[in-house]
Every structure is written in structure tokens, then in C-alpha cells.
């Protein structure tokens, strides 16, 4: 079999144009998920019994179901819900035409990432000895200040390798956004693949793009880890 190298080259650059969508989807989802994830993590550690179990239920549900089903479900659910809300508010606004599927994808991946990050944050907070909080309080810092200036900086370093994992998995996960007709790397590759039946060429291109994206992200996280972890000495691990 002859691979069509010319096609492969041409498609490679086309596919790269989707990298922006893939990365912005990833970054937005991570940003949106961070605050609620932290809240969930704190709830699971020190919330009331009811809020603890709600947080646990949410995390368990999201982690226990395939992301593809979450996409399929929310993609059929969200537009209708929004439509009802808009109608109820009496606005003349067509949801089905004017909301880009990109935003539905952001919602799906944010909800998913929230649960994953909550687990990461929880284990990172658990890794910080209780004495750190007590020491902060004993020298007169408020609880909030102790969290912001003492506990979170340490927990973040512990959490970074896992956050990196979540990010890489999220980049990979966003490849499913093509089911919502988002034009990311995978979607562009899929279109070019079926256009001339050049499946191998197109998907190998897509595969290379994801490989490069994930590698860059991992290198960046490694830098961040070294920098944020400077307080414990760079040769510590």
C-alpha cells in the first residue's frame, strides 16, 4: 500500500488548525472547574454529613460513567433546558441556532473535570500535615489566610503531577467533542479522512498532533513543578 504523502502533508496543516479549539476547550474547562472542584474537595474533608455525601455521590457518578455518555446525554439535554429557560424569561432568542456547540462542550468537560480535580485536590490536601494549619492559626493567621498562604502553596505542588494527568486526559477526552460537532483536531481529521477515504493518513496526522500537544503540556507542567516546588529544593525528587 502506498501512503498518500502529499495528502498527509496537506492534511497535517489543516488538522493543526483545530489545535486552537482543542486547547481552548481544555483550558476553559480546567479554569471553570478549578473553583468548584476545590469547594467539593473541602466539602468532602470537612463538610457536614449531608454535603459530604452529596459531594461523594457527584464524584462517584461522574467517575463511574463513560464520558461519551455524559456527552450524549448533556448534548441532548442542555439545549432543551436552555430553550425552556429562555422561553420562560420571555426572551426572543433562538437557542438552537445561536449557541455554538463549543459552549455545550465546555459545560460537559467542566462538569467532568470538576469531579476529577476534586479527587486530586482532596488527596493533595490530605497530604499536608494538620500541624501546618495549627501552626498558621497559632501565630495569629486567620483560617483563610493559612489556607491561601500556607496550605494551598504546598498542596499545589503535591497535586501538580496529578493535575498534569488530568490535563493530558482532558486533551485526549476533548477528541470526543466531534460528537457535538465541535471543529477540533479530531473533527477536522475525521472530515478529511472520509472525504477521500484516506483514513490512515488523516488519523496518523491527528495522532501526531495529539502527541505533540500532550508532550508540550507535560513539559510545561514539569517546569511549573520545579518552579513551585523550589521551596523544597529542586533535587528533592
Amino acid at each position, binding site marked *: 500500500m502506498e501512503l498518500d504523502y502529499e495528502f498527509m502533508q496537506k492534511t497535517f496543516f489543516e488538522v493543526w488548525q483545530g489545535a486552537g479549539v482543542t486547547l481552548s476547550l481544555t483550558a476553559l474547562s480546567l479554569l471553570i472547574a478549578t473553583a468548584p472542584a476545590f469547594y467539593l474537595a473541602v466539602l468532602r474533608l470537612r463538610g457536614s454529613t449531608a454535603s459530604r455525601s452529596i459531594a461523594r455521590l457527584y464524584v462517584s457518578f461522574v467517575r463511574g460513567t463513560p464520558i461519551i455518555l455524559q456527552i450524549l446525554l448533556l448534548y441532548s439535554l442542555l439545549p432543551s433546558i436552555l430553550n425552556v429557560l429562555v422561553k420562560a424569561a420571555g426572551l426572543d432568542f433562538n437557542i438552537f441556532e445561536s449557541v455554538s456547540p463549543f459552549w455545550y462542550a465546555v459545560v460537559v468537560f467542566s462538569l467532568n473535570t470538576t469531579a476529577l480535580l476534586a479527587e486530586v485536590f482532596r488527596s493533595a490536601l490530605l497530604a499536608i500535615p494538620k500541624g501546618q494549619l495549627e501552626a498558621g492559626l497559632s501565630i495569629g493567621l486567620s483560617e483563610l489566610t493559612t489556607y491561601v498562604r500556607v496550605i494551598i502553596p504546598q498542596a499545589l505542588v503535591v497535586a501538580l503531577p496529578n493535575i498534569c494527568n488530568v490535563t493530558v486526559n482532558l486533551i485526549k477526552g476533548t477528541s470526543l467533542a466531534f460528537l457535538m460537532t465541535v471543529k477540533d483536531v479530531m473533527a477536522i481529521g475525521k472530515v478529511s479522512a472520509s472525504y477521500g477515504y484516506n*483514513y490512515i493518513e488523516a488519523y496518523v496526522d491527528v*495522532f501526531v498532533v495529539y502527541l505533540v500537544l*500532550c508532550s508540550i503540556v507535560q513539559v510545561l507542567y514539569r517546569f511549573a513543578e520545579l518552579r513551585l516546588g523550589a521551596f523544597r529544593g529542586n533535587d528533592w525528587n
Partner: protein
Amino acid sequence: MDTRAFDPAMIVAVIPDLLRFLDVTLLVAITSIVLGSLGGIALAWMKLSKKRVLFAIAEAYIYIMRCTPSIVLLFIVFYGLPELLFSFFGFNANTVHRAVFAILTFTLLFSAYISEVFRAAYLAVPKGQYEAAVSIGLSPWQAVFRVVLPQAAVIALPNFGNATINLMKEGALAYTIGLIDLIGQGSLIIAQNFGAYGIETYTACMLIYWILTLLIEQAFARLERRLDKGQSFAVRDAAKKPGFLPNWMKGGEAHGA
């Protein structure tokens, strides 16, 4: 758009229909896990070996698989492999069942994920265990198989359980190549209803997956307790019992503030 009311009864009604195809989902998952574990053992062995070529190959394979979205690999295998087979061997793979492609893909992925689990578990058993076994006259093979591996297996168990659950969830992708598994059947049901009851059907699928995940988690937790032979759990349980020292004096507590 006039919205039809959400019909919870429909969720229950489609579950029996969906469950008829649970065996396809489970078959794909279990076969991939078994084959992938064999591949994972081979990869872990390569990464532990002193031959640099083997190490580099395993390392590269694991890195690449870690960066590949499963759907991309699935499409490469499903669309690309038949072309390759045909042009090199003249073998017509179009008649091969779709499940085979799904199993092949998930085996490739799972072996990469699980090899790291196996390797870490093997390294977590102290070297003294092997030395002690050899010093009382076991052969090196016996020492590995009778002393080191049983302990490594227990250490690997929680992560193996996680990887199993992840694989089962990723197996849900198989419907995108037209395999009629749980979700494939779900979309068929939706199509038969002319696109209606999508939300209810997907919810039913999610519930089934959720229950499966919880069951697998439980099963692994039990297995771990059983295989542990009273080692780490005994220590943990003892720590919980009121002992000589009050709990706050033991120190090293976690930040469960």
C-alpha cells in the same frame, strides 16, 4: 419547540432491552483486560530489563499510548488496519467482526496503562524479600514467583481495579465503529423511537455503567482484603483500635481538618 415531558418510566422500560447487550460490552472489556495484562507484563519486564533497547522500546510505547486519545487509536485500527492487511497479505479484513477491532485497540491501550502499575508494584516489594528467599535456598525463579510476585499482586490490586474501571468506560467508545454494545443498542432504541426518548435512554445507560463501576470497585476492595493475608489491613485495623497511646499522640495525622 414543544418539549415532551421527561418520562422517568421510560428509563426503567428500556433497561431490559439494553441489558441484552451487556454481554458484548463485558466481553470486549474482559478480553481486552486479559490480553492487555499479558502485554502489560511483557512491557513491565522490558522496562525492568537491563537491555537498553528493550527499555527504550517499552518506554516509547507507553509514552505514545499515554498521549493518544482512545478514539483516534480506535479509528486508526478500525479503518487503517484492514487496508494494511489487505495490501501486505491480501487478507480481506472486512468480514472480521467489529468487536475484534475494539478488543485489539483496548488491548494496546490497556497494556500500556497497566504495565506501569505492574512495574511500580514489583519495585514496591523490598529487595530483602527476594534476598531472604534466595538465602533460604529457593531458586531465583521460585523466589520471584512464590515470594515477590504474590506480594506485588496485592500492591497492584487497587490500581488494577482503577485501570479496569477506566477500560470499561473507554469500551463505551466501541459503538462509534458500529459495534452493537450497550450504547450501540441505546442509539438503536433512540432511532427506533424516531429520535425521541434520547435523554431517558442515555440516562438508563449511565445508570447501568454506574452500577457496574460500583460493583467492580466493591469486588476489588473485597479481593484486596482477602489476598492481603492480614498484612497491611491488620496494621491499619490495629491503628484504629484504642491502644496504649491516645490517638492524638500518635502524630503524623493527615490534614483532615
